[in-house]
């Protein structure tokens, strides 16, 4: 018996490879602008990095060049229900970055000064005042920097919701559909795709967005612009529901463990790295999990008699300078890239989607994107591409 596979053809103004939070939000904003969009996702939309991350919706700690985008994203997060139809368990709990010693406190103060003009509303709290405000943390830190309107959300719910909202608005969203091959045609692009069931799909579009996360390097390279992108796997663990003791998203200056407690009481902690099973899947590493558990108890003694019920990780693309690549291709008109968020693309993703939509419509974005140009790696040392990604 021979299987009969279908061959289908689609035309769109914009074809988007990858239905994570970046591709999903680009699809949503473009569709709202009136473009005909085809969103192609190999897995399920929002099932990769965008759906398995720690859920930190945080501006504090980002390098200044990311803050204009990050601020725009902050505004988008503020109207999440209106945009995607759910609240996604998004809460502006505040993000508190702890200083374990005076030197770390000094560096938090220095960061505050550096980003003053962006209006994050940071507040340094130290000494007596810190202990009075955070009795649960008081003796493990000398102080901290609070960003009151940062917070956290449930990535499993938020990220798929962007693609779903785009579909509702009229975008063609194809899940379980891998883009295998892309070529430039006379006036645009031809994408050859295969569904998990084996059916073929051809998409023709004028514009192409490369939002394929940690796997974006392949597409960029096929258009003659290789990028030193490497994959890494932040390690996560969650406890059973515990009595509430933490109402703020916690990070630590200098890296290490971070943690938050969700409405149900489960505490999510992150730190360390997992390992790759293959190019698409990763698993938490035992040493990372055990170290994370040890450090988490140090930071939160409340966990001492608790259990970790689940650990996980994901596949994230990292660049050598830890800044993403966002903007037009340097080799191919009509192609735009957005990837390499280096462990911090969940918060900023929606604004990146919006900026991509503006680039498509206007040829430029109202947010400054120059720092994120793909050309910055053109003459870069190839050795950079193998450098192991550092802290989160």
């Amino acid at each position, binding site marked *: 018996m021979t299987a009969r596979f279908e061959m289908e053809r689609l035309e769109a103004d914009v074809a988007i490879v990858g239905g994570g939070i970046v591709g999903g939000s680009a699809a949503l904003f473009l569709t709202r602008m009136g473009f005909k969009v085809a969103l192609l996702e190999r897995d399920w939309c929002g099932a990769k990095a965008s759906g398995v991350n720690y859920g930190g919706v945080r501006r504090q700690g980002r390098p200044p060049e990311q803050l204009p985008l990050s601020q725009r994203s902050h505004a988008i997060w503020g109207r999440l229900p209106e945009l995607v139809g759910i609240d996604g368990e998004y809460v502006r709990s505040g993000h508190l970055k702890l200083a374990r010693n005076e030197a770390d406190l000094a560096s938090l103060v220095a960061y505050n000064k550096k980003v003053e003009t962006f209006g994050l509303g940071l507040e340094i709290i130290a000494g007596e005042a810190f202990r009075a405000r955070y009795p649960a943390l008081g003796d493990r830190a000398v102080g901290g920097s609070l960003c009151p309107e940062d917070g956290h959300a449930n990535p*499993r*719910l938020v990220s798929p919701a962007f693609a779903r909202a785009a579909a509702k608005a009229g975008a063609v969203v194809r899940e379980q559909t891998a883009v295998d091959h892309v070529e430039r045609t006379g006036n645009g692009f031809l994408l050859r795709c295969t569904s998990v069931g084996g059916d073929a799909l051809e998409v023709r579009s004028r514009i192409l967005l490369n939002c394929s996360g940690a796997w974006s390097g392949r597409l960029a390279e096929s258009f003659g612009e290789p990028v030193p992108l490497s994959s890494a796997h932040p390690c996560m663990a969650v406890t059973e529901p515990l009595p509430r003791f933490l109402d703020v998203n916690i990070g630590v200056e200098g890296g290490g463990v971070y943690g938050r407690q969700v409405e149900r009481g489960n505490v999510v902690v992150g730190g360390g790295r997992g390992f790759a099973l293959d190019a698409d899947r990763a698993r938490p590493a035992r040493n990372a999990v055990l170290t*994370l558990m040890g450090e988490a108890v140090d930071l939160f003694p409340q966990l001492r008699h608790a259990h970790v019920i689940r650990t996980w990780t994901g596949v994230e693309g990292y660049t050598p300078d830890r800044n993403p690549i966002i903007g037009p291709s340097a080799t191919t008109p009509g192609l735009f890239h957005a990837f390499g968020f280096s462990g911090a693309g969940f918060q900023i993703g929606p604004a990146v989607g919006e900026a991509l939509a503006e680039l498509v419509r206007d040829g430029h974005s109202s947010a400054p994107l120059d720092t994120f140009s793909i050309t910055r790696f053109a003459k870069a040392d190839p050795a950079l591409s193998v450098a192991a990604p550092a802290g989160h």
Partner: protein
Amino acid sequence: MTDTPVHPPIIVGAGPAGVRTAETLVAAGLRPLVIDEAARWGGQIYRQPPEGFHRPKRALYGFEAGKADALHRAMAGILPAVDYRPRSLVWNIESGALDVTPNDGLKGGRSETVPFSHLILAPGATDRVLPFPGWTTPGVFTLGGSQVALKFQGCAVGSRVLFLGTGPLLYLVAYQYAKAGATVAGVLDTSGFADHARAVPGMLRDPGTFAKGVYYVGWLRAHGVPVHSGVRPVRVEGDGRVEALVWRRNGAEQRTVCDAVAFGLGLRPETQLADLAGCRFRFDAMDRAWVPERSAAGRTSVAGVYVAGDGAGIAGADAAEMAGERAALALLEDLGRPVDSARATLLEQKLAASARFRRALTDAFPFPADWAASVPDDTPVCRCEEVSAGTLRKAARDGEAAEINRLKALTRVGMGRCQGRMCGAASAELLAQALGTGPDAVGRLRSQPPVKPLPFSAGILDEEKAS
């Protein structure tokens, strides 16, 4: 050529399969490491009471007392020749090593990494749970759980216990309860009389087991216990404690007063360790579950990793003993040691026969295929995360979840303490029913470490703080 392994062979599980594996390896001059979560060897069926409890084996194991005794003695006899680690949970397998943590109640302790070259997984099974209205009411237990209470602690789950579900265990546990002095309010079998009748020829392949089944039913009836087949549960009644079960048969509702319900619809194999070890899986239509692929000898798709017993697919205790021995012989063959090949062949033949008997059992006690369609929307399926049948159906109906891991991501089902070990089978059945397909077509839950909740003490470096 004979290899001496760098590491001792490791056996996970000290039930019938694990004990016979160990015995066979010891007989060949190896010194295996046996890791078991339980406090004493024996596994589920031959579980021993805690040290210091003395109840005669005849009372504990009934007809199986002889087998229980033989298995306990076998392990006792080889204790000096094995490294035996009871009360130890294997919570992860990664790059050729196991992670083991003490399972000592609240005390916990640091996790230890144990490398292996040859690993036999014999982790057994748990009850398969299919929820129905009121199943989370205190006083509702799984069949296996109620048997554990009896075997391990010597206590009954209630004074008037109603038995509900299907499978040979249903009648066995009811009988054991009655013998132990509890009042058995009834035995309600979800399979029908016609199912039983149809299966008789196949069951006669193992006349001993068949006769025992007939005996239990006869004994229960003779002692005035109401036994009904073709039953469907309607709901548990009771506020804070079971007071009665309402059930339906031939369209008529009935109510049985009881203070506990023991229910079970067969068993599900424990397969997460095989998954973490990287074994390839296949869907088993009889178990309605994904099981590691294995050869007749027990080899998996990963060299050096073997599976035996109910953890490789439900086959019962006698088969578990044979499979354990056969897997040990496979391991020895792979080390280049001489093995009794006639014995290996005989074991494979007996295992094949027991698989045929198993098929007859499945005919006699079929899975209630209408369950997924009939469970009401407001019935909780995942207790840990409080996810109802309706929530799962909605996610499937809205076209958002066409696969079990996606269903988990969107609804939280299987994300709690049990990690889907209890609610996974029910969710897969519900998803399949909502999508108009079978449980084989909705994918397999991905395993992540830890396979069971891991105390934070596992990661604490400072021993002082850990205890």
